[in-house]
């Protein structure tokens, strides 16, 4: 089956500055893909090209079997732009009803949509009185209109508190289960982590890594930290056993590669009567993300 979104060798230059170079990616039915990258990495540019808002310089783009921005694609694709604030004089209900009419849907369903994003209580209030997170939910509600085949969401969780963010990902789970393909962007790996099927890391306009979080973790092969608390007075023995370790307060900190992890733990376990506790600290999400987005020379 062909993917809902298929992009090959996409290139875009703004006044001599390369915003995207040779980017290829695809998103299939029911798949949630996160596009990660620092500010200026090219995430928004890539999304605008997918939506047909700006033309690409080179490359092939296939959106739901047709060209980006054409009538067929527009009917099937939903978009959440970054930082959309909507008109402060309209109520949430009026704003959603308007977007429903543009899609040829009956505006009667507007309240149900606002309920889905948790805005029913404020539906008849002006958007001018909404918080940033509430405006973000208005944007999300309009992206749900008419069961789109592809959702392109630009930094959808910025401005959302942790509880709202969890609700948001639950909503995405439901949409993906119904067969929607979802491409969302974020500048923080911690925001998307386990809630997406695949991660794409964009850096300086280039795709520098792609895969599940576990695959990326293995590929980065970042050192693992092992923190050992010695029983009173025995930390000297530990430092003698592991010459590369450093003393941090009451604990001793060792580092090793992923492959050496079990061996190192066995060595520590051999000193059982001198050790009070062990913590294994895997590389943090931010470290993995920084590893990939820095490699391209940023």
């Amino acid at each position: 089956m062909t993917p809902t979104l298929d992009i090959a060798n996409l290139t875009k230059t703004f006044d001599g500055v390369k915003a995207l170079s040779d980017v290829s990616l695809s998103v299939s039915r029911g798949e949630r893909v996160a596009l990660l990258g620092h500010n200026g990495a090219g995430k928004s540019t890539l999304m605008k090209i997918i939506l047909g808002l700006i033309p690409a310089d080179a490359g092939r783009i296939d959106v739901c079997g047709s060209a980006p921005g054409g009538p067929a694609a527009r009917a099937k694709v939903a978009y959440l732009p970054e930082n959309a604030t909507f008109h402060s004089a309209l109520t949430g209900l009026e704003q959603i009803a308007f977007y429903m009419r543009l899609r040829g849907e009956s505006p009667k369903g507007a309240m149900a949509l606002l309920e889905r994003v948790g805005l029913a209580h404020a539906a008849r209030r002006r958007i001018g009185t909404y918080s940033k997170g509430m405006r973000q939910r208005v944007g999300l509600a309009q992206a749900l209109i008419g069961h789109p085949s592809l959702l392109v969401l630009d930094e959808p969780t910025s401005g959302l508190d942790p509880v709202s963010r969890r609700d948001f990902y639950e909503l995405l789970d439901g949409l993906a289960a119904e067969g929607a393909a979802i491409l969302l962007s974020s500048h923080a790996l911690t925001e998307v982590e386990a809630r997406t099927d695949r991660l794409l890391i964009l850096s300086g306009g280039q795709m520098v890594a792609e895969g599940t979080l576990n695959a990326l973790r293995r590929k980065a092969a970042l050192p693992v930290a092992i923190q050992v608390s010695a029983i009173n007075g025995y930390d000297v023995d530990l430092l003698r056993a592991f010459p590369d370790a450093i003393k941090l307060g009451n604990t001793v900190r060792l580092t090793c590669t992923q492959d050496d992890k079990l061996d190192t733990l066995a060595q520590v376990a051999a000193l059982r009567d001198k050790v009070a506790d062990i913590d294994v600290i895997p590389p943090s999400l931010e470290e993995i993300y920084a590893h990939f987005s820095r490699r391209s020379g940023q």
Partner: protein
Amino acid sequence: MIERIYATAVTEIHIARRNRWVLIAVVLMVVFSLVLSAVGSAPVGGLGADRLSVTVASLTSLSVYLVPLVALLMSFDAVAGEVERGTLPLLLTYPVGRGEVLLGKLLAHSTILIIALVAGYGAAALIAVATDPAAVAGFGALWRLTWTSVLLGATFLGIGYALSALARRASGAAGLAIGVWLGLVVLYDLALLAAVVADDGGIFTTQVFPTALLANPADAFRIFNLTASQATAAASGVGAAAGALPLWQTLLSLCLWPLAALGLATLAFRRAEP
């Protein structure tokens, strides 16, 4: 297509109502119309015309300034506001054409303008008829003034949309709108009069001047209404100098301008990259 234009118009009416544009437009038109019909009551006997026809002549001079102003005030935010709120890219991913968006806004803003015109002109007409029974003879002139005002308003709405798309920022669009209003409605006539005086009956006065008047929608509006009601004698300034323009020419200019302005707006909007 009709559905999408209508949806846009309904939304724009909501916005205009909340932002008090409807109220402001109506109050402006009514207050100025009432003031004019009070002031304009003096020379009735001298002209031999009915009271309403005299009021219409004064309203024509008023509307030349006020209708373009109200139209530009309603329209300068149309595209620039969407850009600033970050909703333009979103709107353009919907199955709606840019022409449909503009037509929807035009429909809403014209409706508001018509409401304001009917309220203002209507109040003035009521006063005229109440004080002078012969004033019913002026209804033809009043009707003419009303529909030409709508055409003039549509022209400046279109110009406002074009400026809004070109400026991309509401503050910039507002500045451009004020500049265009001053230029077309105030300075244009002053410059023409100065040139006519300096030329003293030469080529400029006979050849360039009439064309220059037709090229400006505000002048075409004024001259069409004054000529049609044979009131050029009572007019002053440019109106008086232009009695020689045939009616059909000013009418053609009045009808072509809204189309040209809307075409211009569509072109400017098409070029705006989100």
